């Protein structure tokens, strides 16, 4: 299967990338690892006129300890993040969620920025970033801005990024004393989650992000609020399907997904010491 024809634009800096997407608007698509975009293009579900390759932007490949938070460049590949000691220590649930993505070949190519910007409710990584309450740094022709992960996802495969904006950095508050769990239910090893849950708990912070329970990555405010009000794991997990809009597809019905969410959140909370 071969994508529809397009023009290929190779860029060597963030500013060149922004210039290209500003010039071509919705006719252009950035390509990072290409492991979400190319399958869509091969099925002709996406037919951009211009494909702007950002893989050579080494300036966006890093994990830094920035004091209160971790700073991760948008083009950092999954294989770097899953093994990174700073991530494992301070944001362990992100390392686990990233490790669960696809297989080693997919993780050698896919990037954290691509996984977020794709806005896929089935993706594991956004659930971890929701639980961790990450902040995203976007840059466009008007300059940089911060976006809370809670404001970023706006619909199925839709995000708050403007046509001329790209993700530069992901900032994650450091939680070295937190306990965490990543739960993923699927049928075969390499598959996407039917339902997944990222859980973070410490004295001052509880975070619960769900995979595949809505048209976009979803924070379970109901479970978080119950935990903050002193509910135990079993009581809080009963609320895991509240306000969700789980899809029905070949793998699972809406009702089954709701059941899975309650089970996975309970297991996750127990593993995280609640």
């Amino acid at each position, binding site marked *: 299967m*071969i994508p529809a024809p*397009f023009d*290929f634009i*190779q860029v060597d800096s963030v500013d060149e990338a922004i210039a290209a997407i500003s010039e071509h608007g919705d006719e252009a698509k950035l390509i990072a690892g*290409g*492991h979400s975009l190319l399958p869509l293009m091969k099925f002709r579900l996406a037919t951009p006129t211009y494909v702007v390759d950002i893989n050579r932007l080494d300036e966006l490949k890093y994990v830094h300890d920035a004091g209160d938070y971790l700073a991760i460049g948008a083009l950092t590949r999954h294989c770097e993040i899953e093994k990174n000691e700073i991530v494992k220590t301070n944001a362990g649930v992100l390392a686990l969620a990233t490790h669960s993505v696809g*297989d080693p*070949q997919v993780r*050698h190519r896919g990037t954290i920025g691509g996984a977020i910007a794709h806005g896929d409710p089935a993706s594991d990584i956004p659930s971890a970033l929701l639980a961790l309450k990450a902040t995203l740094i976007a840059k466009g022709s008007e300059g940089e801005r911060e976006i809370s992960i809670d404001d970023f996802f706006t619909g199925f495969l839709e995000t708050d990024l403007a046509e001329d904006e790209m993700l530069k950095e992901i900032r994650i508050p450091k939680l070295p004393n937190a306990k965490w769990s990543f739960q993923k239910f699927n049928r075969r*090893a390499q598959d996407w989650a039917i339902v997944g849950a990222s859980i973070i708990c410490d004295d001052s912070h509880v975070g619960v992000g769900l995979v595949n329970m809505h048209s976009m990555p979803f924070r379970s405010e109901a479970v978080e609020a119950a935990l903050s009000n002193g509910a135990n794991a079993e009581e809080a997990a009963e609320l895991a399907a509240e306000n969700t809009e789980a899809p029905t597809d070949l793998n699972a019905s809406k009702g089954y997904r709701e059941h899975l969410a309650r089970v996975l959140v309970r297991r996750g909370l127990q593993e995280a010491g609640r």
Partner: protein
Amino acid sequence: MEVNIKINSVTHSHEVEPRMLLVQYIRELAGLTGTNIGCDTSSCGACTVHLNGESVKSCTVLAAQVDGMNVETIEGLAEGDGTLHPMQQAFHECHALQCGYCTPGMVMASVSLIDENPSLTEKEVREGLEGNLCRCTGYHNIVKAVLQASEVAK
């Protein structure tokens, strides 16, 4: 557009359409047909090659994206005199293939696994090969071969 890719230490230069996939470049332009296409949807791993030393699925990479980079395919593993790479030798000795369709991708994925972690456990081998499907062997002998090759690598 003109694309130059070093495949198994030989630079290939070809005029391509930007939409050409790396696996097509390798098979149709470089003429190296050891790399197979199975699913064409990044699920089966038959098309696995090394890009700058790491395993990737070449059906989900554009040739244009790897202009100037190094690719290694199954043809590049054996020595010039035909001596097999330790992973190929282990597949041979452990009877880790039947029809052989998955084998080039399986071997390339396994070599990359061992490069990253020379002391693999059986569980790590099974997890590490989750992106490679084999419809013949039941995986048992493949896992044995990778563990045997990792002993040699140590």
